[in-house]
């Protein structure tokens, strides 16, 4: 079973939707969810084999394009498939009383976003990464502007403009790489990148940083993120914060480790991540719009992941992967519950939580926020503990202090939200949840608690994943030397 199906099947589904419409109103919805379930099983079976694998496309690397399956990329593929499956199950419940207009288009965009995120993670050719960069981008622009309200259109317009500028700089970087190194294959490039003089490395590094920086939401380039989160539908925000950002983060650090293993720019990246976390948490204090608060908290957590991963040690990468998992699951839970709250109460202010009357959603909010804070017995604790340990072990005590202070600030506005949840005011009517939505919430809560209480459950898998991520030597000779 080859890993091409992750990209080929959603594309086939997208192109064949006019035919699927023949099978009645729910034809497209059930076909899409069934396909995602099948791909999730494929991801599980591929993840079981922990050895490296090369999936050749049209001709053998290093001339052709190929997918590389190692511990790290399979961890991300598994995470994305799991979250997208839960998202689809949740939406199946939601669409009964509040379907999206033009629903077939929504399912096509959903699957294209999934296919391109997985393509970004698996691809080993830098121009192929640019093409997936664009596919993920363009489906995200349309998803954010889907409701066609002035806010949504403004969000889509801003996201599109920053995306176009980012892709112009990224293409400029790729052009320079091909002119001076003669190849597009990541393995060949990682072997010959150090031969470049320092100023060319600086220029290419700067261009790639700006190209990916917009999408990785790092400090100087993330002015557009909160407007997009507030403009888009909360259902779409859950996809942005748990799948799309993580795919771009993985690609950014995958290229950084391959091109510049002990890079002279690492301290600068570390600082950018720490400042981005601090700035996001502080601004989040005075926000009253629910979506905007959790957008800033996503920015903060992404800044933390960025800082940890730029330490480039195996333990730091493992910590980063733990935080990625905990943050994605928690943010998916939060934004899905936000969707139910906003669809029921029609207002996005924090004060609406006072009139919320739904034990399930309250429990989801509390568990996710505790996990984001890194409280023991929850998934976030393992990641944050390892992160602080790796900061300390590589002597970055200033960044350690910034991260601790930012987590303190973060806990302040989480308690503010918790206060509204448990406020004494009269409670509105009980929020009705479809059975599939209840199932999704309970699975997410179970994931947070299970991983928090029993981290040994999958720390072996993550250890192998982080080792694969840092082990660029095998990556290099795998492609050029021994083929499958």
């Amino acid at each position, binding site marked *: 079973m*080859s890993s*091409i199906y992750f990209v*080929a099947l959603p*594309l*086939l589904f*997208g*192109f*064949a939707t*006019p*035919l699927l419409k023949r099978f009645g109103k729910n034809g497209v919805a059930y076909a899409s969810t069934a396909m995602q379930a099948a791909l999730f099983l494929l991801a599980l079976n591929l993840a079981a084999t922990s050895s490296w694998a090369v*999936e*050749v*496309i*049209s*001709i053998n690397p*290093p*001339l*052709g*394009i190929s997918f590389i399956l190692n511990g790290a990329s399979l961890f991300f593929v598994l995470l994305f498939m799991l979250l997208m499956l839960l998202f689809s199950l949740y939406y199946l419940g939601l669409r009964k009383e509040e379907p999206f207009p*033009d629903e077939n*288009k929504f399912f*096509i*965009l959903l699957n*294209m976003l999934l*296919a*391109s995120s997985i*393509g970004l993670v698996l691809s080993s050719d830098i*121009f*192929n990464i640019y*093409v*997936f960069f*664009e*596919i993920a981008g*363009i*489906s995200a*622009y*349309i998803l954010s*502007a*889907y409701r*066609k309200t002035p806010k949504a259109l403004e969000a889509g317009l*801003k996201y599109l*403009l920053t995306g176009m500028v980012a892709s112009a700089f990224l293409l400029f970087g790729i052009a*320079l790489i*091909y*002119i*001076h*190194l*003669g*190849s*597009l*294959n990541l393995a*060949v490039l990682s072997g010959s990148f150090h031969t470049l*003089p320092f*100023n*060319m490395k*600086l*220029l290419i590094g700067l261009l790639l940083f700006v190209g990916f920086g917009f999408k990785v939401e790092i400090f100087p380039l993330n*002015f*557009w993120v909160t*407007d997009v989160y507030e403009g888009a539908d909360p259902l779409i925000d859950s996809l942005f914060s748990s799948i799309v950002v993580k795919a771009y983060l993985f690609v950014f650090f995958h290229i950084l480790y391959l091109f510049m293993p002990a890079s002279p720019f690492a301290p600068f990246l570390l600082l950018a991540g720490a400042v981005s976390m601090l700035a996001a948490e502080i601004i989040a204090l005075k926000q009253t719009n629910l979506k905007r608060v959790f957008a800033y908290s996503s920015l903060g957590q992404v800044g933390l992941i960025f800082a940890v991963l730029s330490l480039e040690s195996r333990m730091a990468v493992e910590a980063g992967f733990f935080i990625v998992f905990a943050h994605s699951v928690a943010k998916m839970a939060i934004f899905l519950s936000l969707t139910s709250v906003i669809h029921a109460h029609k207002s996005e202010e924090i004060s609406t939580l006072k009139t919320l009357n739904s034990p399930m959603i309250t429990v989801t909010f509390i568990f996710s926020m505790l996990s984001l804070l890194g409280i023991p017995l929850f998934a976030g604790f393992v990641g944050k503990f390892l992160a602080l340990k790796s900061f300390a072990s590589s002597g970055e005590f200033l960044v350690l202090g910034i991260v601790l202070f930012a987590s303190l600030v973060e806990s302040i506005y989480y308690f503010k939200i918790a206060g509204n949840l448990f406020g004494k005011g009269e409670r509105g009517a009980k929020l009705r949840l479809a059975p599939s939505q209840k199932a999704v919430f309970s699975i997410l809560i179970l994931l947070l608690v299970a991983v928090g209480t029993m981290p040994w459950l999958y720390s072996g898998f993550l250890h192998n994943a982080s080792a694969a991520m840092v082990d660029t030597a095998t990556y290099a000779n795998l492609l050029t030397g021994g083929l499958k």
Partner: protein
Amino acid sequence: MNFKRDIPSRTYSGFALSALFILTIFNILLESGVSKTQRAGDALLALSGKEGVANAVTSVVVYFRGFDTLGEIAVLFIAALGIGLMLHGDRRTEHEESNYILQKASKLLFPMIMLFGVYVMVYGHLSPGGGFQGGVIIASGILLLLISDGSFEVPHAVISVLETFAGISYVLIGLIGLLVLDKFLGNFLPNDVAQMGRLFSGGIIPLVYIVVGIKVGSEMSMIVQNLIQRSDDD
């Protein structure tokens, strides 16, 4: 932070701009003397000699880096879908008659443009051109009709059948390559060099480029019609 207000004022951005500009120019000029690096393209040129295709760029676009073109088709498909979603105007309102010259000229020009578009698409692997260029030329032919003939409307049913057929067959060609050669988008059809000049001489390459042309043509005409139709409404 608001999108535009925070970008520093004109003078400051001018200064930052020129600093970056000097750095880039200095870097690139300094490097332009670097010895001619051995590029992957030369190896692909040798390979494309054996593919039986005269246009090396087409063999790279469709076969060697065929996955990029599949991604490219996905981008265009999503763009057409998004524009259809955004500009979904109602049926074409009564459009005032365009002037006489345009009507007569377009009747004369339309077959030429379509013929040229089909030629560019089908001969993509022998002469410059191919699926993308051919498809867009056909779309500009349809654009000419949309402008000149007020009541003309792109037949939505025909276009979506063409589009679906082209998209599915492209992915199926890829999957057949996966099953036959264990390489997605592998060239499973015979492509001997002897018949270089013949129409179907490059194995799957001409097939794929014609399918790409049909898809690009139908999508571009949908985009063009949505843009024109929307602008008639107010």
